[in-house]
């Protein structure tokens, strides 16, 4: 096991957002954390990344495992060029770092853009640059927080393919937070469904399907239906009785 989470919980003030979440991720696995917005899936990821330390429970990541993080927004440093952003996480000799960063920029398809500043990039290019920045440090575990949710459908598909290419090439362990069921099913070996108030782990779905997968395949469709059923069954987003009540008063 590369990463283990035991009885993870998190309170914001009085409000318990997350409760008793247990899971583990094996080396080289792609695991998605799926859930509606506000269910605490990003909270899990931030705890894993060490960006949040006020959680309950236990997280164990072997100390030799380097962790990389890709945010929902690119979060490039606006005063640095693409190349300088890509070398941001590296220490030591500048020339060597730049040569290394160039290789990863080429991998994400930004070879020609190294001298540009973030303001000159499109959304997709900026997110590619952010991916290169994370990859340059050669992470063993890559954490992604809804990394493609702000992109258009086509760019999103391109970057999903890129992520799979990276996974094939480096065998990186990937944990991806998403609210997109199709994305979770297309990319992952396992889908963890977070649900409830406070959220608990409602489902640990193994997506036993070889790659390359077909986005429209019947098997994925079936799983999607299962997940939707699960979401509709338990997640009552609106209290409809309240609506009628207000209606009657008016």
């Amino acid at each position, binding site marked *: 096991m590369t990463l283990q989470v035991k009885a993870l919980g998190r309170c914001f003030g009085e409000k318990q957002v997350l409760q008793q979440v247990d899971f583990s991720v094996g080396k080289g696995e792609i695991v998605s954390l799926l859930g509606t917005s506000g269910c605490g899936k990003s909270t899990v990821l931030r705890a894993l*990344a060490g*960006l949040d330390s006020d959680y309950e429970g236990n997280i164990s990541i072997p100390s030799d495992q380097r962790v990389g*993080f890709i*945010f929902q*927004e690119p*979060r490039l*440093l*606006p*005063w*640095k060029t693409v190349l300088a952003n890509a070398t*941001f*996480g590296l220490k030591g000799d500048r020339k060597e770092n730049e040569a290394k960063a160039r290789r990863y920029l080429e991998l994400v398809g930004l070879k020609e853009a190294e001298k540009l*500043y*973030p*303001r000159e990039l499109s959304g997709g290019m900026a997110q590619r640059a952010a991916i290169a920045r994370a990859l340059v*440090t050669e992470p063993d575990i890559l954490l992604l927080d809804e990394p493609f949710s702000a992109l258009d459908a086509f760019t999103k598909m391109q970057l999903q393919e890129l992520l799979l290419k990276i996974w094939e090439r480096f065998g990186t362990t990937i944990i991806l937070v998403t609210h997109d069921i199709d994305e979770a099913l297309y990319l992952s070996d396992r889908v963890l469904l977070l649900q409830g108030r406070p959220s608990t782990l409602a489902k640990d779905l193994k997506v036993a399907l070889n790659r390359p997968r077909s986005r429209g395949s019947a098997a994925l469709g079936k799983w999607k239906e299962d997940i939707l059923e699960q979401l509709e069954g338990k997640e009552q987003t609106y209290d409809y009785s309240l609506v009628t009540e207000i209606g009657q008063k008016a």
Partner: protein
Amino acid sequence: MWKKLRTHPVLLGSLLPIVLLAAWEILSRAGVIPAYQLPAPSVILSTIITYFKDGSLQEHVLLTVYRLFVGFIIGTIAAILLGTLVGYSELAERFFDPLIQAFRSIPSLAWVPLFILWMGIGETSKVTLIAVGVFFPVYLNIVDGIRGVDRKLIEVGRMYGLDGVALVRRIILPASLPSFLTGLRSGLGLGWMFVVAAEIMGASQGLGYLLILGQNTYAPDVIIASIFLFALLGKLTDWVLKLIQKRSLHWQDTALAK
């Protein structure tokens, strides 16, 4: 012709000053405006040339610029040190900021008598007064700038193992640079104001001294020449800072960055 006037960067803006100058010259020469109150532009220009030829103008200008420069540097360094500390550490803010804010509410010219009493009318009191004037806008802008740094960028830094000094150096300072440069420019503006005050309060040289000299010798041409030079130098130094600002902030994604 009209189109050229409308689109040219300086033409339209210089129209009014030229007309006013011409009117002023004509009215002065015709004797409508008494020369002992407002001499003609040509007279003022010849005053400047006279001072320039005997070398005293250069000395006055140099000394004024020197005082401003030293005060500006001292005020800025103090503001950087305190501003960074207060902006970065909440503890430092609670410790220093109330006192600094209290001092800020003292109109800086009110320090003049005290500084003269403490340090005499020599260079020290002048430079100190200028430094005090420069300190506050720079300090406030640094604190604001550091406070305003995007939390998301700080998280990026932490994700790559930065903290303490490294985080300040690699994320916080560059991210607050725009605000710092704005502070420098308004600090410089105040610096010019205070150099006048400092030189009026007693000096034997400098542009501010020329103002007093003109007043005491009934020479309005000297006063206006000195005012003109203050405006020219103020504009020039601000232009230098503006150039630095433009150069170092070319990465900014704003309407002005073109």
